[in-house]
């Protein structure tokens, strides 16, 4: 039987790979023999990615809200590697505010970065994946897209939007051997959650049966599984990785 976790020789694009969950995903993919192009918003971020990926990948400065920048990175991958097997849409931002105080630019920037970018990147990789009858798209959603969270109407809307987008696209292209899934992290130990106060953390822990933050590697493991040959029959699904805080 073929190794159902074998990813050797594949090529992956991981957005938002300079730190946190994206970095852990890029590292685990590389460890499994995947060539990874990891993106960051700045040139120095891209250099840092190149440094930690080593021989088997590289960083690339990508602005996911700029359609031309997306076209450029996909063209670069096509010319240099000739294939793209795995797309991990991980780049995301928060601009928290109560709805009554939320500004249009806070709403729009979260939508552009967390949702519209996924539409653009998926559209961009579609032709190649359709032709090769092979592809894995994994979108990083969030537990709060399902549960809601005060102060995050924009972020929750975008993350829930990803789930609907994922289901619709999964149905469109399932017959072409391409799967589209989400991983929805709970509270993970990253810079995004380091911004929380100790009181906020304690309040959150009372709702997490596992009584701890998750590690980025625990999200990456779910992503690697969805990318693997063994997950070929899973599509349109959301895997929740949250220590039990929300069971869907």
């Amino acid at each position: 039987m073929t190794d159902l976790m074998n990813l050797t020789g594949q090529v992956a694009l991981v957005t938002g790979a300079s730190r946190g969950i994206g970095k852990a995903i890029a590292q685990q993919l590389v460890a499994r023999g995947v060539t990874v192009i990891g993106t960051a918003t700045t040139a120095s971020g891209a250099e840092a990615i190149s440094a930690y990926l080593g021989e088997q990948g590289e960083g690339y400065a990508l602005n996911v809200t700029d359609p031309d920048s997306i076209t450029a990175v996909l063209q670069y991958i096509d010319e240099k590697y000739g294939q793209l097997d795995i797309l991990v849409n991980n780049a995301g931002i928060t601009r928290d505010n109560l709805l009554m105080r939320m500004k249009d630019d806070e709403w729009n920037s979260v939508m552009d970065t967390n949702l519209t970018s996924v539409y653009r990147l998926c559209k961009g990789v579609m032709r190649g994946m359709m032709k090769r009858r092979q592809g894995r798209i994994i979108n990083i959603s969030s537990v709060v897209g399902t549960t809601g969270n005060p102060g995050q109407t924009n972020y929750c809307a975008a993350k829930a939007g990803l789930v609907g987008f994922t289901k619709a696209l999964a149905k469109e292209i399932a017959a072409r051997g391409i799967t589209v899934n989400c991983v929805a992290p709970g509270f993970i130990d990253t810079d995004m959650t380091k911004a929380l106060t100790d009181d906020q953390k304690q309040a959150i822990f009372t709702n997490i049966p596992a009584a701890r933050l998750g590690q980025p590697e625990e999200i990456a493991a779910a992503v690697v599984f969805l990318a693997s040959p063994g997950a070929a029959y899973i599509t349109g699904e959301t895997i929740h990785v949250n220590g039990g805080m929300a069971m869907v």
Partner: protein
Amino acid sequence: MSTIEERVKKIIVEQLGVKEEEVKPEASFENDLGADSLDIVELVMALEEEFDTEIPDEEAEKIRTVEAAIEYVKSHSGE
């Protein structure tokens, strides 16, 4: 060297998995050849590659029959 007509028909046979004799000029991809909307998108992609051209979306939407595909390629290639 095959004619444009032969090349277009060959692509239709390959993409839609139909028999050559079914690919009549008046045949509709959707109604006669069993194609769904995504099949037609892929067919247009294949035509673009075969004839090294880009078919704009609004033109692609009009390509619904074998004849329309052949006519489009004929009127947009230098041959």
